């Protein structure tokens, strides 16, 4: 199987004034197409930093990150943006919907940025996705009128509307209760299966990891290991 993401010895240092804060200390990771991968680790272990590198939101201090066969360090800021637009979908911890747009408009937004589809094509795609995430009735609502779970479903629809090869989700359930969180994970899993979209999500929640194909564990900016959800659960003394 082809690797859609290939991280090699990635180091990321942040500088706070004179202090250099190492966020990643040489991480190597391959993610194959169609994977449904969880990145686990305690707070501050570097999950977000790793996802940012993969999501072309940031570039590594040293080492390399390849996404869809492109070395992100060689891309200009504009090319990175294009890569994000056409190849990657984002799901955020706090949903990050544009509050002034309706649900449908939020979902349509990446298509408008892409400028590839005609109006009817876009409308068709948006309504299909609304249907898919179970929000058919809510197209004209504003995000503020929805619950947290509904909002995250809108965000998922927005991330998927461009049919990206890769969807990144940084702690997508952190702001949701566990039942809703489980539903969101189920939805993502289903889309992963039906649309063949690769998902990488971070979490520090054991029950969330359980949905993944595999769990990559981070600690202190280093990749600890790559295990099955069952193994991860067992080590933490929890049922899978």
């Amino acid at each position, binding site marked *: 199987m082809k690797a859609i993401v290939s991280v090699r010895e990635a180091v990321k240092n942040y500088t706070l004034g004179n202090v250099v804060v190492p966020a990643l200390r040489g991480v190597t990771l391959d993610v194959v197409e169609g994977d449904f991968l969880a990145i686990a680790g305690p707070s501050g272990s570097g999950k*977000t930093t790793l996802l*940012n590198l993969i*999501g072309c*939101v*940031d570039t590594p201090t040293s080492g390399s990150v390849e996404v869809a066969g492109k070395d992100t360090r060689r891309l200009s800021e*504009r090319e990175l*943006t*294009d890569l*994000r*637009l*056409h190849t990657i*979908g*984002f799901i*955020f*911890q*706090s949903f*990050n919907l*544009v*509050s*002034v*747009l309706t649900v449908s*408009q939020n979902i*349509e*937004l*990446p298509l*408008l*940025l*892409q*400028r*590839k*589809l*005609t*109006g009817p094509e876009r409308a068709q795609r948006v309504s299909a996705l609304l249907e898919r995430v179970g929000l058919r009735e809510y197209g004209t609502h504003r995000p503020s009128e929805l619950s947290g779970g509904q909002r995250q479903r809108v965000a998922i629809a*927005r*991330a998927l509307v461009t049919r990206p090869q890769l969807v990144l989700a*940084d702690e997508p359930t952190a702001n949701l209760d566990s039942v809703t969180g489980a539903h969101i994970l189920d939805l993502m899993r289903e889309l992963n299966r039906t649309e063949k979209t690769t998902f990488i999500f971070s979490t520090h929640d054991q029950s969330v990891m359980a949905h993944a194909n595999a769990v990559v564990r981070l600690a202190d900016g280093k990749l600890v290991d790559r295990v099955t959800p069952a193994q991860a659960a067992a080590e933490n003394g929890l049922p899978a």
Partner: protein
Amino acid sequence: MRAWLATLGVVAQMAFRNLFASRLKTIIVGGIIFFGGLLVVAGNSLLDSVVASMSRSVIGSVAGHIQVYNAKSKDTLEVMGRMMMGDPDLSQLDDFAKVRDSLLKVENVKSVVPMGISGALVTSGNTIDLALEKLRSAVNARHDAKTDAQRVEAEARVASEKGHVRQIVSVLQGDLKNAKAVLDERTIDPADGAAVNRAASDAFWQDFDKEPFEALEFLENRIASQAADADLLFLNYIGTDFQAFQKSFDRMKIVEGTTVPAGKRGFLFAKHVYEEQLKLKAARRLDQIKEGTENEGETIATDPDLKRMVRENVSQVREILLQLDAAKTVDFRAKLQRELGSQEADVGKLLAAFFQTDDQNFRERYDFFYKELAPSLELYRVRIGDVLTIKAFTRSGYVQSVNVPVYGTFEFQGLEKSTLAGALNLMDMVSFRELYGFMSGEKLAEIQALQKAAGAREVSRENAEAELFGSKAEDAPAAKAPRRIEATTTPGVAPVMRDLGESLGGKLQREEARSRVFPADEVERGVVLNAAVILKNPKKIRETIVAIEAQGKRDGLTLKAIDWQAAAGLIGQFVNVIRMVLYVAILIIFLIALVIINNALVMATLERVKEIGTLRAIGAQRRFILAMLVVESIVVGFIFGGLGAGLGVLLVSVVGKIGIPAKSDVWFFFFSGPRLYPFIGTSNIVAAFAIVLLVSAFSSFYPAWIAMRVTPRQAMQEEE
């Protein structure tokens, strides 16, 4: 292309929604832009309207569209707004007819009016001089009386004139008492006081008939000089061709009397000058109080100006008292006692009480004054039909004196109340040339001969004043000698002489002034200082100026042409000054707006960092973010700027229907009439939009820069 439009669509949509979502910001920013648009449109329209109407005032009252003068002149020509300053140093245009013919060759020129503008300082007649002159003539008549009937009649005249002079002397005695109360005793010459007391004494008048000529001499030398009621008057006048002037400046109309017939000497007072400077001051103040209370809705009780005028009328009754001889004194006493229901015998006190008017009794007193008192008074110091003796310094420094009959008064329609438009009187060109010192060859020879005979010496302009006013020599022989150039003996005053006396010289001179007709050729082929040009198409002033100067060159004339605004001097500049003030005000308002809008946008941008970060993360390029913000600003600019400009248009057109009333006489000139009717200029609307867009753009720069720097990573940041 369609996708591009769709992006623009989403940008616009997001922009609109953002504006709506952050209403407070939109209202603040929009409100400022709204007022900005309003100010630009309304302010500029108002100003343009003032310029347009003021230009009508300037063009229609004296300047014409273009003024032409000799390019060799040292100074620039200014036809308006000159006060007591000396005349500008202009070279003459030798032959007006030639200039006119040259100008008329220029396609756009409709008519040409010859001009010369100058002024003369004159003093008006002294009441006591006139009274003494009448007394002297009565004494002479008694002396020469052949029959009893003549003697009786002359005796009565002497008695009446004596009464008048005594009345004046008693007023002077009162003045002296007042002066002693107010001034330091030492500053008053005791000899003056003694003279007045002597002239007021019964003994003096009992002895008067014994040595009347000696007594008269005493009064003339010791008393007349103390009655300084003669006012210095500065008359500005334009020498012109009355017929050409009236035809070209069609707003001019004769108020009293007639225009000056072609080829004759003559003077027309500007009605405003006539009222303001020559009318009996008490009467003038009554007119102004009436105007204030009846036309401007003010009251004596509340308006400080009107209050002041009432006060002045009460305290300055002397001017009227001096005009009263014995018979009039009796008449006034009776009338005022009746009107006021008073037993007071002193006419001065009665007059003071009479002028103590309030809002209730004013109209009645006003009517009473004009019906009962005014017919016995000289309301104007110069009457229509009088011959005016004007003395002026010629360019070579001589004092030249010319007698011109006053034919009437005139004013410019719509500018009746304007001091500016009503400051210039009109004089015939021949008299003007003589006063200015332009001589025909024949005249020059005549003068040189006279000069030799009279032993005149050349007087430079600088010390001509001293020559004219410095020495207080005996009575003015100059006024009585026709065409006589001021020699070493200079009169104490240069009077506006109503009465040139009964001397033969005076009569001849008056006769010459009234009846001599100058041939058209002499009037037209002479020297002028400048010429007003009226155009067929007033829009082409610039082109015509060029054409005129070019035509002048072809005809061997050194002509300089300037537009009305330049010719209006300071007044023309005034508009530019207001415009500058408006622009500075607009600039300041927009600078403040810039700061406030900038702040509001920065705040709004900071609030939207997460949203912008999200957009960037999901693939929006920086230029998309920029476009979004710019569209937001432009939309606000257009909508609110448009509304402001729209309200401005509405306001101006509503005000344009009603008109803005001119509050004071200055505004009559700038409004070219009693009301200003502002109009909209399309350029102002365009300007308003341009400015609004510019400000919107500028105030978006900094917030846009902040927005540009938002990274997609900021979308991930969790606000704790």
